[in-house]
């Protein structure tokens, strides 16, 4: 048996340098960055150093970076913060049908508060057409939020083109959820042309509890968390110094070896996709075949169910994920697979494999040793599978 972690999309292990950098702030450097006495000095500097490192990762200025507890919080801050701040200018928001639930549900909450939301559809690969965004824009649109890449199906969106359309055809702010791309692929806020951007450290070998929202200078939001003066008054609360330090170091390391990691992952991903689709019948890749995240493999397997696959894989040492109804705590089918037009029964056979730094071809080979028999076994049990 082999221990194979194919769920880097859920979270990533911390790099040793990240842990090392965080330790002093978990131990002797426990001070509050806002304290005027000496205990505050080093933590305060550390927070600003982290801020500068995150800014560099995405081509922003230090004072445009706001730390949050997660990517979801950054998304909420963007959607609700912009919507509420600009209420008098308009109450129309545009999102895509495949956004992360933190954007989808934040927009839904705004609907309950009297805002209108247009959800732009996607094609069968999950790609948003800039022309469809354009159609959705109105005079009273204040926010457009389209994710840089989708964590469930791996598809990378044409953000640069979409941002251009939003700028030329509306007065709306443009936010992108870059949680799935920041730290993995080059992300430059000027190139992308965005006003706001979310990212999360636990996606690129940094700690959990460490997210950030980029807000372009001159853009204002209504804070979600009111209180003290932290984060220039936009997000109150004593800073999570160790997490911010970890996030900064992770960002720095991610920037340095980004191309190397991408070059390492793409062949593994492509080999896995090739073997899955050629060695197993009635299995389909979801998301765009090439415009996709470097380590991302998502498929739907006909006649069998996701959770059952995950359990049997787990028994063989493989950790993976799924978008099936049973694996969602809410017992709802994946809104992303639904938006692709995938028939619900088939969507329940979803399997999601996300590879990372420590993944190897041996992992891919082992997976292909244990997975086909799992598929056979579950198909033999299934009332939907009739052998030819």
């Amino acid at each position: 048996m082999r221990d194979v972690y194919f769920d880097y999309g859920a979270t990533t292990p911390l790099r040793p340098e990240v842990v090392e950098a965080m330790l002093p702030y978990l131990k002797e450097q426990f001070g509050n960055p806002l304290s005027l006495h000496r205990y505050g000095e080093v933590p305060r500097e550390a927070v600003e150093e982290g801020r500068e490192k995150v800014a560099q990762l995405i081509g922003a200025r230090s004072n445009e970076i706001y730390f949050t507890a997660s990517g979801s919080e950054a998304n909420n801050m963007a959607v609700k913060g912009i919507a509420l701040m600009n209420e008098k200018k308009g109450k129309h928001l545009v999102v895509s049908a495949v956004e992360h639930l933190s954007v989808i549900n934040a927009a839904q909450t705004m609907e309950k508060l009297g805002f209108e939301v247009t959800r732009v559809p996607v094609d069968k690969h999950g790609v948003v057409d800039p022309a469809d965004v354009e159609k959705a824009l109105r005079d009273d649109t204040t926010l457009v939020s389209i994710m840089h890449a989708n964590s469930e199906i791996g598809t990378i969106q044409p953000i640069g083109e979409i941002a251009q359309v939003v700028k030329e055809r509306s007065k709306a702010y443009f936010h992108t959820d870059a949680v799935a791309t920041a730290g993995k692929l080059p992300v430059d806020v000027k190139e992308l042309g965005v006003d706001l951007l979310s990212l999360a450290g636990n996606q690129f070998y940094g700690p959990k509890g460490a997210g950030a929202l980029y807000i372009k200078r001159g853009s204002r939001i209504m804070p979600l968390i009111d209180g003290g003066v932290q984060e220039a008054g936009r997000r109150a609360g004593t800073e999570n110094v160790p997490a911010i330090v970890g996030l900064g170091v992770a960002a720095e390391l991610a920037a340095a070896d980004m191309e190397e990691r991408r070059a390492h992952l793409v062949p593994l991903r492509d080999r896995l996709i090739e073997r899955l689709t050629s060695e197993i019948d009635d299995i389909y890749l979801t998301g765009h075949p090439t415009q996709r995240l470097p380590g991302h493999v998502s498929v739907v397997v006909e006649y069998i169910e996701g959770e059952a696959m995950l359990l049997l894989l787990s028994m063989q040492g493989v950790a993976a994920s799924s978008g099936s109804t049973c694996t969602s705590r809410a017992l709802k089918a994946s809104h992303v697979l639904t938006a692709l037009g995938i028939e619900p029964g088939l969507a329940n056979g979803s399997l999601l494999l996300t590879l990372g730094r420590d993944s190897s071809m041996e992992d891919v080979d082992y997976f292909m040793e244990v997975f086909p028999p799992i598929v056979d076994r579950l198909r033999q049990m299934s009332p939907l599978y009739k052998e030819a």
Partner: protein
Amino acid sequence: MPTYSEKVMDHFANPRNVGEIEDADGVGSEGNPVCGDMMEFYIKVDDGRLTDVKYKTFGCGAAIACSSMVSEMAKGKTVEEAKKITNADVAAELEGLPKNKLHCSNLGADALHKAIEDYESKAREG
């Protein structure tokens, strides 16, 4: 993964009575792939007793475990006894199910009862 009891994991990893019965006396199906769980039960009845019970299941760990447990509980019982098997009995025999998986136990008991109904309606006609 939800926290499944050892009993559930055992029935999931080693499901009993999987299969079809070609000349079944009753067939019952419940659920559908859209909701994520579907079971088809086949029964053979001799002298008022379920001499054989088999099933095919599409679904999660709980679904597979429930159908296995239902088949074990029903095999060898009289038709009347099998009719009385409830989803609560199934969940209890499995030593508990996570709250959001309790509906799987409904499916198993219901599919079995449908198979029995099918047998009884055929028996009435025949």
